[in-house]
């Protein structure tokens, strides 16, 4: 899976939001707020480029004090949310 290239994480008014940014256009209809851990997963997914639930779960376990099960649930929930919004290409 990959994050579509037009979507970026920005900090707006102290909150992490994902926006659809074209070359010189931003679509506020596709704005998605992320909590701190979800924003971390987003950044990790972007760093990995081509990522999987497993690769993100593994990195989340390394970074945070969570069980593999908790991490997987967190990653799966975020990916489902992003997929629903059309942010991910498979």
């Amino acid at each position, binding site marked *: 899976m990959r994050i579509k290239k037009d979507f970026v994480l920005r900090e707006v008014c102290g909150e992490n939001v994902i926006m659809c940014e074209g070359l010189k256009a931003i679509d506020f209809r596709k*704005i998605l707020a992320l909590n701190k851990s979800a924003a971390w997963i987003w950044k990790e997914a972007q760093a990995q480029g081509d990522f999987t639930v497993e690769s993100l779960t593994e990195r989340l376990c390394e970074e945070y004090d969570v069980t593999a099960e908790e991490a997987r649930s967190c990653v799966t929930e975020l990916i489902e949310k992003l997929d629903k919004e059309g942010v991910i290409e498979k």
Partner: protein
Amino acid sequence: MTDNEIIEEAVRLVREGVNVTLPVNGYSMLPFIIGGKESVILHRPGLIDVGDVVLAWVDGNRYVVHRIIKLDYDRVTLMGDGNVKGTEHCRLNDIKARVTHVVSADNKKRDLYSRWRVRAAKLWYWLRPIRRYLLAIYRRL
């Protein structure tokens, strides 16, 4: 995030030269913009004129997307197309963006300043005394 915070971020991006698509609420721009269903595309204000639809900080207390009905040097008077009375006032530098297009829920873009829409907007302005009745009919359609 509040609506104002989102709008301020949109204004900041417009100032940077980015074109922003922003959903709008309310019925104050009927029948030209349907709040809750449609979005507007915001550009840098540039040279604005009477008849332009703009995003403005009015009366020192709120943002509106309304049409300019009067320009007197630095003083701007605005009115919502869907309103039957009441105007808003601001200065030129309170005009934060010009609305160039409206985007429908099914992603169709329409120019707010096509020849016939400009004519329709002028006619609509002169129909203020009977707007109330026309809007009532429109809402029932």
